[in-house]
């Protein structure tokens, strides 16, 4: 029977569709024209302009700082959550599971709005701290999700064996559980980091006036139609960094899984 070529062609078309805007961004970042509409010649002036924009560098620093704190906290909270969910079977854990799933399904705007109202009601001033708390909240669930996948098939009896042999709970955790779970925790943390860097909506609601993360600064630049080509240049550089990180992560995980086979 002849198999239809349609699915394969559709896949190619979809991949082209997915990469079209990204290719467009990179190409346009070298466009001399101030207006994206037409190509008026090759230029690197937007990259040069980028280096002069200190507010962008500051915002990037803020984003990186928040992402670091949020992903570290989420790695701890998410790992303990996944651990509890796998280890214990009780009504309590059913509720716990529902709680962990909530941030995954709650639309960003509701999360942002509800946290804003919470902070307002509690009289907490909006700042980078409230942003970090908000980021920890949604990152936690993603880390729990990733670590959970890793825990499927995890043999908890090794931990009991360690305890029986005289290890303290802390030693058991540090010497047995942590090394076994490290790849899952790290990839969860990496995911949390990217989610934090990427977030606009929740941040916008809880950031308060004045301070900006990279997405909120870029958004307001777009809204004010200010120096749009500079955003193209910035995006191209960020793309390059992302691809580099992905390539390195791929390498590391491949080496990691090779190590497991030993």
């Amino acid at each position: 029977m002849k198999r239809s070529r349609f699915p394969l062609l559709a896949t190619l078309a979809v991949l082209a569709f997915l990469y079209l805007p990204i290719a467009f961004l990179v190409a346009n970042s070298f466009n001399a024209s101030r207006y994206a509409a037409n190509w008026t010649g090759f230029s690197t002036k937007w990259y040069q302009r980028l280096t002069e924009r200190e507010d962008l560098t500051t915002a990037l620093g803020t984003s990186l700082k928040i992402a670091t704190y949020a992903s570290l906290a989420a790695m701890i909270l998410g790992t303990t959550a996944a651990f509890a969910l796998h280890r214990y079977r009780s009504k309590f854990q059913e509720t716990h599971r529902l709680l962990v799933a909530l941030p995954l399904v709650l639309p960003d705007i509701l999360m942002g709005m509800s946290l804003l109202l919470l902070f307002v009601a509690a009289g907490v001033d909006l700042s980078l701290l409230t942003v970090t708390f908000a980021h920890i909240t949604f990152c936690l669930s993603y880390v729990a999700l990733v670590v959970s996948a890793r825990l499927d098939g995890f043999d908890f009896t090794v931990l009991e064996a360690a305890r029986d042999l005289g290890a303290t709970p802390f030693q058991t955790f540090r010497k047995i559980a942590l090394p076994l779970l490290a790849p899952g925790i790290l990839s969860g943390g990496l995911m949390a980091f990217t989610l934090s860097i990427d977030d606009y909506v929740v941040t916008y609601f809880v950031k308060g006036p004045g301070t900006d993360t990279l997405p909120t600064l870029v958004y307001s630049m777009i809204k004010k139609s200010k120096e749009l080509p500079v955003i193209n240049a910035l995006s191209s550089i960020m793309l390059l960094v992302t691809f580099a990180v992905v390539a390195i992560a791929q390498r590391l995980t491949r080496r990691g899984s090779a190590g497991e086979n030993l």
Partner: protein
Amino acid sequence: MNRRREWLNTAPSFLWLTVFVVLPVLVIFAIAFRPTLGGGGIGDGWSLDAIRSLWDFSYLELLSRTVWISAAVTGLCLLVSLPVAYAMARMTPVWRARVVLLVIVPFWTNFVIRVFAWQQILHAEGWLADRLRDLGILGENDRLLGNAFAVILVSVYTYLPFGILPLFAAAEKFDFGLLDAARDLGAGALRSITTVFLPGIRQGLMTAMIVIFIPMLGSYIVPDMVGGTDSQMIGNKIAQRNFGDRNLPQAAALSAALTLLVIAPMFLKRKKNEA
């Protein structure tokens, strides 16, 4: 002893999520019943004003628009993802992994920046609009940007992986021998797909529908950046009440409505699972 250990192990995430997810959602419902003070304040006592303000035809229109745009995006995403998931499931494992990576990578680009790219592509004086006008597809005064078409197109773009990946995960486990059997027994291509393949990946279809439809209901960035006045969604209204009018109780009332809208399909799903 064991219970204490369970509690110690569960408490950090449990308490965190209670304080930063459950409590805030309850606060939404509480503040929706508060009076409004000028300048973004929340008054003391209780009031039905904010809730009553929802009783307006324009909100009904906003709500139905939010639902139909979300439904259209969900439907289109599934339609486009189906052949892709099918093709991926029939590839060799090495190619599967490659295509999965190819599908994910664009989404490591910042969301705002991806939408911004579309804003430029669909621009009124852009290359695409010019060509479409030359071809006579786009009228002299028609625009690609600032309408529901742009919102749907860009939303489909941003949610496509959420359609492709769950469908692929389900299709990967599907026994394609069943399709051959259906064909051998005389079913046409279309019939064997609708009566054998689609039921076979039902779980994936369900997951994809939920992970696209629910976040879509809360869309804010896409309608804000590429939509027009006739394609704003409930999320935009919430932001406007909040940042523009500084009317927190009304923003809360709208958020409460959206929360109910989001929870409804989840309960429908639960019912179905129980049945």
